[in-house]
């Protein structure tokens, strides 16, 4: 049953030390800024974080890394002009890194939510990221066996939820939200708006409520200007 939390702090309170936490967003779009801030306040440590990047500047995921709370990061693009906190921890051997091609990252997250035990994908074949992995020729292409990425929690951002937990997103802020909510045992979503059941057209629901455990309404979410973030 949907838990509607009173605050971002209450929404993240179950996150435990050692948890695997997926964090949505691609650049600033879809970044659950207030939930990440709440996780920073919360104090959980030894986290494994799944995100497309490895933090920017001195806030959000970068701050969590700076504080030494992230033990491992699984992402596609950790190296950005302003990912200095990750850089520092990585070079000091204080954070483990698993780099995954972005499409394989997305498909592995999707597989976790969809109950697929493993799949063959052509992406990455013959590259250093597929070293040691099982390879088969299928449909005339060499393909690499990849495994699902499950998580204990996901922190994502959607535009609107109804009280059944159904979600809709805005534009390219949709990105990892739907697949991360499905891949996590406990999904936590910040939304700008919570409406009654029946207020979202069933034809346009992107994430059905079955995938949503906790929502919290953040009326005016912080959002950086996209230009202030490094490219990737």
């Amino acid at each position, binding site marked *: 049953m949907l838990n509607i939390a009173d605050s971002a702090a209450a929404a993240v309170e179950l996150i435990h030390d050692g948890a695997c936490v997926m964090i949505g967003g691609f650049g600033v779009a879809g970044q659950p800024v207030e939930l990440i801030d709440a996780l920073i306040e919360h104090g959980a440590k030894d986290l494994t974080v799944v995100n497309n990047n490895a933090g920017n500047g001195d806030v959000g995921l970068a701050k969590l890394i700076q504080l030494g709370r992230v033990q491992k990061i699984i992402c596609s693009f950790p190296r950005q002009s302003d990912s200095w906190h990750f850089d520092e921890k990585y070079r000091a051997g204080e954070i483990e*890194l698993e780099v995954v091609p972005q499409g394989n990252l997305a498909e592995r*997250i999707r597989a976790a939510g969809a109950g697929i035990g493993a799949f063959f*994908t052509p992406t990455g074949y013959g590259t250093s990221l597929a070293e040691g992995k099982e390879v088969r020729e299928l449909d005339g292409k060499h393909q690499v066996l990849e495994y699902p990425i499950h998580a204990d929690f996901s922190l994502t951002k959607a535009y609107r939820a109804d009280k059944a937990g159904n979600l809709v997103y805005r534009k390219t802020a949709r990105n990892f939200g739907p697949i991360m909510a499905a891949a996590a045992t406990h999904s936590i979503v910040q939304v700008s708006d919570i409406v009654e059941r029946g207020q979202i057209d069933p034809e346009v629901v992107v994430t059905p409520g079955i995938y949503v455990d906790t929502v919290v309404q953040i009326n005016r979410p912080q959002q950086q200007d996209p230009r202030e973030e490094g490219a990737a």
Partner: protein
Amino acid sequence: MSVPQNSDHPLSPEELAEVVARDIPAGAYVNLGIGQPTLVSNYLSAEDDVTLHTENGMLGMGAEAHGDEVDPDLINAGKIPVVETEGCSYFHHADSFAMMRGGHLDCCVLGAFQVDQQGNLANWHTGKPDAIPAVGGAMDLATGAKQTFVMMTLKTKKGQSKLVKECTMPLTGVGCVSRIYTDLGVFLLEDGKVTVRETFGVGFDELAQQVDVELTPAR
């Protein structure tokens, strides 16, 4: 040797983008990589009916957004704000990369550090031992589209050819590149053979001397 020299000077990135744009078939679905390839969109006209894909979840991506158009929820893969076009659509990351991996894009244009005559591409990692690896969507883009075009200067700043016999940098994709657009000429790759379709600011013979790969003139 019947290779046409189609310019009296090496092409600027803008001129080269125009050459690439001319080769994209009308009605095509295309992904333009970050950097030089992005310029190609400036030379696609409405009549071309080309639909741009951005791997962060959109088909029908429009031009860069300015001023009041900027919406933090609408950015491209380079994290630049963009606008919608009529008939665009949004989808999540797994659907977006399924679209790419499933071979639905007609063409993908990418930058490169190196391409070799087998069509192997190196564009994600310089191979420096202390560099932090970061791949993003590069490997997915390299292998997913029906055709992968590379767009680059033929030479590095130090004057070395980026078209090589065998890539020495870490690979992004194996045998995936079918065509290379450079400031000095356009190269077609097939079965390990490199054919020069046209040259810019240089003759075929002179070009052949500058590249350590056997070049065949186009008939």
